[in-house]
């Protein structure tokens, strides 16, 4: 088991930052996820850890050892590539045995280990097949087995499930989690799917444009986002803009126009003060159609659009000339043009300064 840490790692391609002052510390045996939109630098960060790219500046440590410029074949990591990178000219057995042959293990031991790992990923019996004769899910498991069998110091997974269908994705991520727990290998997992990240990780790092914006447990990230980017990237929140009217110890009152004022929770050490521009972040499922017991806001607007989505109905409301996304009980009948009132608990409204870190995602 190995601890992995990155210190001030930066990497530029042309004038794009693929990694920018990345600080990470991943504990022994942890399943740590890099989550972020496409092109934010997840793969690059992973490749720096694997040794396929060298950072422009900064260092990479495995435990106390500086491995920043160690060759990939001397690092003892095992990577599962996004496209699996199974060698088409080798059978499943030979693919998996490859790393062990490199380590010059005796033939008998190789055989034993390969069969064991095949059992672990549930592919016993397919060892003489060739990669092209396998389904997507089976290929993915071969790739995983090939990485696991060498008992790597660090396991690196680059969107290992992105080529699978939705159902298989769910099943495989549970299996990966189970195997990782059993073997307790330090694992770095890359994905752009937030649900996947939430469901399997011990901790998650949210990345955008090469920067790490927040690191925390899935609950931290979900309930206590540090900025609007994280808040909107996770949970598909809806946004309202306004001006701070009053600020006290925990709460801020924000005027969003049309004489509607919303009271929300202050986040962290926010620099907000009276008169500054603010953004309110609310999860669409937190809106209520009946006033709750707790302290709450009342928001009134006109329904512009309603769409039945099965377990809930999605509304687009116009509130003070801004769009608001609201999920309501599907049994509630709402028509476009209706005036409509929703309630939201003060604790469910997060207030961020307007010029906060990261770009604001447009959430329709």
């Amino acid at each position, binding site marked *: 088991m190995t601890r992995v840490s990155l210190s001030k790692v930066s990497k530029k391609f042309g004038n794009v930052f693929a990694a920018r002052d990345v600080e990470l510390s991943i504990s022994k045996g942890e399943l740590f996820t890099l989550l972020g939109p496409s092109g934010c630098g997840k793969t690059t960060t992973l490749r720096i850890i694997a040794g*396929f790219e060298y950072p422009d500046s900064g260092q990479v440590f495995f435990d106390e050892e500086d491995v920043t410029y160690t*060759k990939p074949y001397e690092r003892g990591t095992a990577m599962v590539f996004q*496209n699996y*990178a199974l060698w*088409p000219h080798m059978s499943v057995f030979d693919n998996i045995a490859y790393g062990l042959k*490199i380590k010059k293990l005796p033939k008998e031991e190789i055989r034993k280990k390969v069969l064991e790992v095949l059992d672990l990923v549930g592919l016993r019996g397919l060892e003489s097949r060739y990669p092209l004769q396998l389904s997507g899910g089976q290929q993915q498991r071969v790739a995983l087995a*090939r990485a696991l069998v060498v008992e790597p110091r660090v396991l690196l997974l680059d969107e290992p499930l992105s080529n699978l269908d939705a159902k298989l994705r769910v099943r495989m991520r549970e299996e990966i989690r189970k195997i990782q727990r059993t073997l307790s290998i330090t694992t770095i997992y890359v994905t752009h799917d937030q649900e996947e990240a939430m469901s399997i990780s011990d901790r998650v790092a949210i990345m955008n444009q090469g920067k790490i914006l927040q690191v925390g447990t899935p609950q931290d990230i979900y309930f206590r986002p540090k900025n609007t980017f994280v808040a909107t990237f996770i949970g598909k929140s809806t946004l309202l803009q306004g001006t701070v009217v009053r600020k006290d110890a925990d709460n801020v009152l924000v005027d969003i126009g049309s004489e509607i004022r919303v009271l929300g929770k202050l986040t962290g050490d926010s620099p907000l003060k009276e008169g500054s521009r603010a953004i309110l972040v609310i999860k669409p499922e937190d809106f209520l159609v009946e006033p709750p017991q707790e302290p709450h806001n009342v928001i009134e607007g006109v329904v512009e659009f309603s769409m039945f989505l099965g377990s809930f109905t999605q509304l687009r409301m116009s509130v003070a000339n801004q769009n608001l996304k609201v999920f309501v009980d599907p049994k509630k009948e709402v028509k476009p043009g209706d005036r409509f009132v929703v309630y939201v608990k003060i604790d469910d409204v997060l207030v961020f300064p307007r010029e906060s870190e990261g770009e604001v995602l447009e959430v329709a």
Partner: protein
Amino acid sequence: MLVFMIIFALVMFSLFLILPLVETILLPITFTIERLVSGVKTGYSLIELFSDPRLFRTYSTTEPVIVAQIGNTTLVNFIGWDFGVIPNTLIIASIVTSITTLLGLVVAFVMARYEFRGKLIMRVIAYIPLLMTPFVNAYVIKKLFSFDGLFSYIINTVLGIPLKINVDRMFGVILTQSMAFWPIIYLNIYSSMMMIDPSLEEQAENLGAKGFKLFRSITLPLSLPGLAAGAAVVFIFSMEDLGGPIAYGFHDVLSYSIYSNIKAAQNIGEVGAYVGALAIVLLALALSIFFGIKKYVSLKQYAMLSRGGRWMPRVRKPGLVGSLIIYLVILPIMLFTAMPQIGVFVTAFSVRWSRAYPEGFTLDHFANILVNPEVLSGLTNSLRYAAMATALIIVLSLSSAYVAARSKLHTLNEVIDLISTSPLAIPGLAIASGYIIMFTSGLFKDTFLDPLSSYGPWLLVVLAYTIRRSPFATRVIYAGLQQIHVAYEEAAMNLGASRLRTLATIIVPLLGLNVLSGALLAFVYSVAETSVSVTIGAVAAGQKPLTAVMLDFLTGGRLAGLQLAAAMAVLIVVTQLLIILVTNIFLKQRYAFIGV
């Protein structure tokens, strides 16, 4: 319309490729059967073939290396073995294939995986041996490596070592062919290596593989399709090469035996069967290699599973040892292999080459060839033949490419695809033999297809060019067709356009550049064609194509024959360069290279 295309393609290939080859095969077999049944020898049969000491010997009549001493100078003569026609052919082809594969592999690996100063220049140098200097390059190499040649001069006179070398006969042929053919293998392997998903190698590195182990276990196996295709082409090209055997006077090889017997072909009965028997051997070897490789390559052509990784070719800077190898070993070898072509240019502009190297500068040879009636006739003949062949090739290639790409009958696609690419692998001399056997007797005797009739061989030469060079155009057009979505055509047909109209209004305009490029390539390769040109094409004096005239100049003892032939070769090379330039500009891709 589709039916017309299918019929046209099938008729052309049957009449001018398959049937002549079948007759070639049948003739000696018929004699064999007659011989076995009646015991009477009616013609040259396969029984003679296997007991003919010209063809097979269990011993070599020459020592491969002969050392002599004159004064205090040691003369080393590298001449190679002589085991008779068939073993010689196989020995040469095997050695040439091994040498070129090794060189091609090393250069391809360096080019595909390393980034270094001068790489672009080296990539250009690798194309030089592919410039077409029919026959002349062999004569240039022979001169360079004779006792009085440049290399002996450097060793003996410049370096003062009392040693002179001469490369001749079998070794001369091997040297010449190796220098000329290695880029074919290099280009095939290179394109294979560039197709390898970089993550496949990264994964191996990630699991601890490096250096030679990585190459052995991942890079090489994944490049094998290209390697095999290139090696097959080189083996076949080696067997049918005439330039080397003629230049070095090494006549006991299949190609030369077929050539000399066709040249002497007056009485087709006896000679025809002998030629046929030789052609069978050549054809059988070439076809089994062609089909074997085609099958192997299609099996191993790993459709790369998926392309999720990044497609940045894995190039790195060579270390000190690597750099030394690149600049001190590989670059000199590559320059060395470019020497024949460079030599041809130098010769064409030089007054004489009576000592170690060409001397004096002159443009006279160009002036002379442009007034020489023999040359002018050869030049106009070649241009005419090539132009007519190109016109036919456009129709034939469009037809076969269109059928192969669009017909819904799976077997038909495959058959057409196989037949239309097979001329790449079928030795021109086998085709020439087939034409002689089929069209000089029986049904076709004294018709305008009979090369020995009063019409002369021109039409048959045009048809041979058409068949032999059509694959170049077919491949370019086929590649273009695959990029044109069927929906364009379906949309047109859906609006009521007939297939012909669809072809004329949708396909041809979209394919225009491909057709043009394919036609240009076919044209220049037709001008440079040798096998049919110097055999069938040479039977009537006034109808000889340029390459046959060049051979006359090289072998006929004419004044400044080498320089004049070199000047003609320069004309061909310049045309080739222009055409390759144009097609590269149009298609931004290199379709000009050769593979199965």
